[in-house]
Each structure stands twice: as structure tokens, then as C-alpha cells.
């Protein structure tokens, strides 16, 4: 079953020095699976996610032959319809909990806000569900964390709270934009484990956006590699070793790892032809 279909998506920003095409004709479909989008800064991976979410800045132009989420044409949907989708049926986790959570609202209040925006439920029931959700993201003392402000919790805890906030309404599609890049390495694994379990248990579609090809491939079923606003390669994670595009191979090889002795490290020789 196709949850999301994207066909020839373009996102263009008008700037003083001319039009900048951040996304140039991206096409893919997504079912209830885990899809990774990988690329460097400026490759258009985040703008692709934001366009699906409807968070592209006002001045940008979006065009696509098709941008459909479970039968709804996202390009024709009104602001009101998109608001009804966001948080309820499509959720998004951002990179840094320090900047993405509301600093003057307790974590519990923020989760309840999401719930009460989309569902008519009593304060008490909302509180109950928020606490259950905090427990589901493996926060040990949900009652205490519920009343804390974002600055009072660690990065890992903040990121769990953001996951809780996004999943509390039970969305069908989750977009995670660098969900663990701001976290310590050992905490990263905890957060990924939690995310992995919830996505599997609830049968969501997941788009995982990151610059770390290895991480993405270990987490997702399928990987899309983007360069300069285009998809240069798409392949199942299992076949990553047989990637054909030199850019994908470059991304795979450039990471220093324990036990490999490569001096100097291989670097990417970027070629103009990849842009085309």
C-alpha cells in the first residue's frame, strides 16, 4: 500500500542573486517501511522532508507532478487541511531538542497541546495519555518529567520527549530529520532503539533523513542518496556495498573507523556531471 507518493518534486528559493533550486525533481513512493534519505548539507534532503510536512518557507515555490499522502493531494490542500494532518497523521522529529521544544512550556503541556489540538478529550484523559506515551519512550519517571521544562532535561531525554510528542496522536507517517545528530554516541543508540520499536509496533511509515550513510543504512530498509537536489542513487540497505554511484561509494568510504588504517582518508572528488 502506498502511503506517500512524490513525483518530480521541486523546491525553489528566490534570492537576490537569482533562483536557487534546493530540490530538483525528486520522485519516490513510500509504504509502511523505513526509508532513509542521505546527503551532505545543501543536498536538499531536509527541504524534501519539509515540503512533505508543509513547512517550506512562504517565499519558496514548490511544484510537483504529484505530492500525495494517503490519497490527499498535498499541493491543493488548504492551510487548514494541512494543519489537521500535521501532528495527527504526519509527525516530524527535528535535530536538536534544545531548539525545537518550546522553552517556556513544560514537556507535559506540550504533549497535551498536540493531543488537544487534534482530539476532543478531557484534560485528565490527555494527561493520562501523555504519561503513557512518556513511558513508551522509556522515560523512567514520567510523572516528574511531565512537569519539567526543556532546559531541565538532558539532550537524550529532550529527544525522547519530542518523539513522545510526535507519536502521541499515532501518525501514519513519521519524518525524522537528523534525530540523533545532536546526541552523545551512547545515547544515540538508546534513542534509535526506542524509535525503531515504536515504528515497528505501530506500523508507521518512516523517512529518516541524515548525513550519516552508515547509520541510515543500518536503520532503514531502503536508502535514497541525494546530491545537489537530485536523487543520484536508490538502493536497498542490504545492497549498499554494491552501490554504483561514485558519490555513494565516497560517502561510505570517507568515515574513519576503529581498526581501519587508511592514511590519508579517501575524500570525495566531486564532479560537475553528478549535478545533471
Amino acid at each position: 500500500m502506498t502511503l506517500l507518493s512524490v513525483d518530480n518534486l521541486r523546491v525553489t528559493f528566490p534570492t537576490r542573486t537569482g533562483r536557487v533550486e534546493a530540490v530538483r525533481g525528486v520522485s519516490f513512493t513510500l509504504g509502511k517501511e523505513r526509508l532513509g534519505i542521505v546527503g551532505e548539507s545543501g543536498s536538499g534532503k531536509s527541504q524534501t522532508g519539509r515540503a512533505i510536512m508543509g513547512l517550506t518557507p512562504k517565499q519558496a515555490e514548490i511544484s510537483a507532478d504529484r505530492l500525495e499522502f494517503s490519497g490527499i493531494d498535498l499541493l491543493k490542500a488548504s492551510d487548514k487541511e494541512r494543519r489537521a494532518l500535521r501532528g495527527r497523521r504526519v509527525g516530524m522529529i527535528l535535530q536538536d531538542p534544545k531548539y525545537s521544544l518550546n522553552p517556556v512550556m513544560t514537556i507535559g503541556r506540550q504533549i497535551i497541546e498536540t493531543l488537544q489540538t487534534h482530539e476532543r478529550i478531557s484534560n485528565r484523559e490527555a494527561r493520562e495519555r501523555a504519561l503513557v506515551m512518556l513511558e513508551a519512550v522509556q522515560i523512567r519517571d514520567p510523572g516528574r518529567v511531565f512537569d519539567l521544562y526543556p532546559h531541565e532535561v538532558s539532550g537524550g531525554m529532550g529527544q525522547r520527549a519530542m518523539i513522545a510528542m510526535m507519536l502521541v496522536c499515532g501518525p501514519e507517517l513519521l519524518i525524522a530529520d537528523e534525530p540523533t545528530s545532536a546526541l552523545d554516541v551512547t545515547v544515540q543508540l538508546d534513542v534509535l532503539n526506542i524509535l525503531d520499536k515504536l515504528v515497528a509496533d505501530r506500523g508507521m511509515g518512516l523517512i529518516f533523513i541524515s548525513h550519516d550513510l552508515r547509520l541510515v543504512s543500518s536503520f532503514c530498509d531502503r536508502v535514497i542518496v541525494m546530491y545537489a537536489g537530485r536523487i543520484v542513487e536508490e538502493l536497498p540497505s542490504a545492497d549498499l556495498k554494491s552501490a554504483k554511484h561514485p558519490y555513494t561509494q565516497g560517502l561510505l568510504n570517507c568515515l574513519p573507523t576503529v581498526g581501519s588504517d587508511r592514511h590519508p582518508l579517501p575524500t570525495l572528488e566531486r564532479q560537475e556531471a553528478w549535478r545533471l
Partner: protein
Amino acid sequence: MSEPAVLIRDMRVVFDDYMALKDVSIAVQPKESFGIVGESGSGKSTLLRAIAGLNAFEAGTLEINGKTYPARGRDKAFYRTVQMVFQDPYGSLHPRQTVDRLLLEPLAIHGFDNTEARIARALDEVGLGTGFRFRYSHQLSGGQRQRIAIARALIVEPKILLLDEPTSALDASIQAEILNLLEQARRDRDLTFLMVSHDLGVVSHMCDRLAVMRGGEVVETILPDSLVTRDFSADYTRQLLVASEGFRRD
């Protein structure tokens, strides 16, 4: 053995009631590349900053090439020998100074002559050509900014380079370029590196020895090879190693 380039004995740093460094001792030999791994709050950056004089230490001693330095305050000669590169290339360059001005300042402070040629050579060494000379930092990418930060550190011809997560704000592909640049500079100039990172892969690639830090203490000091042979004792080192291997579904 020769005199250590950096010798720290029982260094303690306290912020109000919080002990950030608990009597840490390390010795880095000349021309050695020494790594420190640890997570946020382990005290690894505090250690570098205490060496550089950016925060004071309460107890312990610091010796650079045999010369003892006090808990606070560093003389000019110190900064001729020791330079630092910071994590965030967006925060560590003056936003209203051109690259030229940024590189001129350390030269002026230390009374170097022939500044024109030195600036041109410094830019060349970090692979940025003179075309970048009159740009502001906001006109550069993250990787280019980090190259400027490295050029600024190297331009006073230091002997010891303190590197505080020099690549963790960069893309994986740019990281490789910066690491190669640093290795090249170390070979060309016989530099001593003291490098801090949370990434075990980066530290084991760059360093001859590494210390694992946690909660303000050095858990253990090992050789990068012993990570491969699993020849280490601390459980925390194992945790870091597992984490560096990436996500695995059980």
C-alpha cells in the same frame, strides 16, 4: 624518554560546586598525537580549555615543554607554542572581519614580519588559495571556515595544537578532508596534537594513544590497536566502541 610536550599532574577544575575535572594526569610526548574521547560532561573540553588558559584550575600542575604555567593567565610566548582549534566553525571566527584581517591579527600580536607572504602561504597550506582572502566568514561553508580556523592556528608556527572536536560540526565527507589536512600539517611541521572528540573512529584514526574520559576522570589510556584486539579493561570503553559501530537491530 624526552621531556613531555604537555605534562599535567592532578589537575582539578571546579565550577562553583561542580567538580569538572577530578585530579587528571596525562603526559603527551613531543610529536605525539594524543586523543581524548568522552561524552558531553566528561570534562574533555574543560581539560583542553584549562591547558589553554581559558578556564582556571584549582589544583595540580601544568608544564609545557618543561615550563610550568600558573592556574590562570598565559604569557605571549605560550600562545606562540600552543594554539587551539575549536568545534564550531560558525562561532569561532569574527563575523565582521575578513579572512585577511583574521589571519593578520595573530601575526600582529606576535610581531611577525612579512605578513603578506605568510597569509598567502597559510591560505595555500589549508587548500584555500588567495581568492578567499577578502571574504567574510559568512561567505564560507562550514568546511572552509574550519580551514581558516586551522590556518589561523598554524600561522604563528606553534609546536602544540589543541583540537576541540574539530570536525564534529561537519559533514562526514568534509570531515575526511579536514582530518587529512590536519595529518598533513602535523607531518610537515612536526606538531604535537592533543585532540578531543566524542567519536572513537576519529580519535583512533588520528592518534597514537588515547585516553577515555568519563565524569571528570580518565578511565583508561590505551593504544588505538587495543580497540581492535579488545585489549582494554574499562566497561565504558566497550560501550563507546559498541556505539561507534552503529545501530544494530536485536
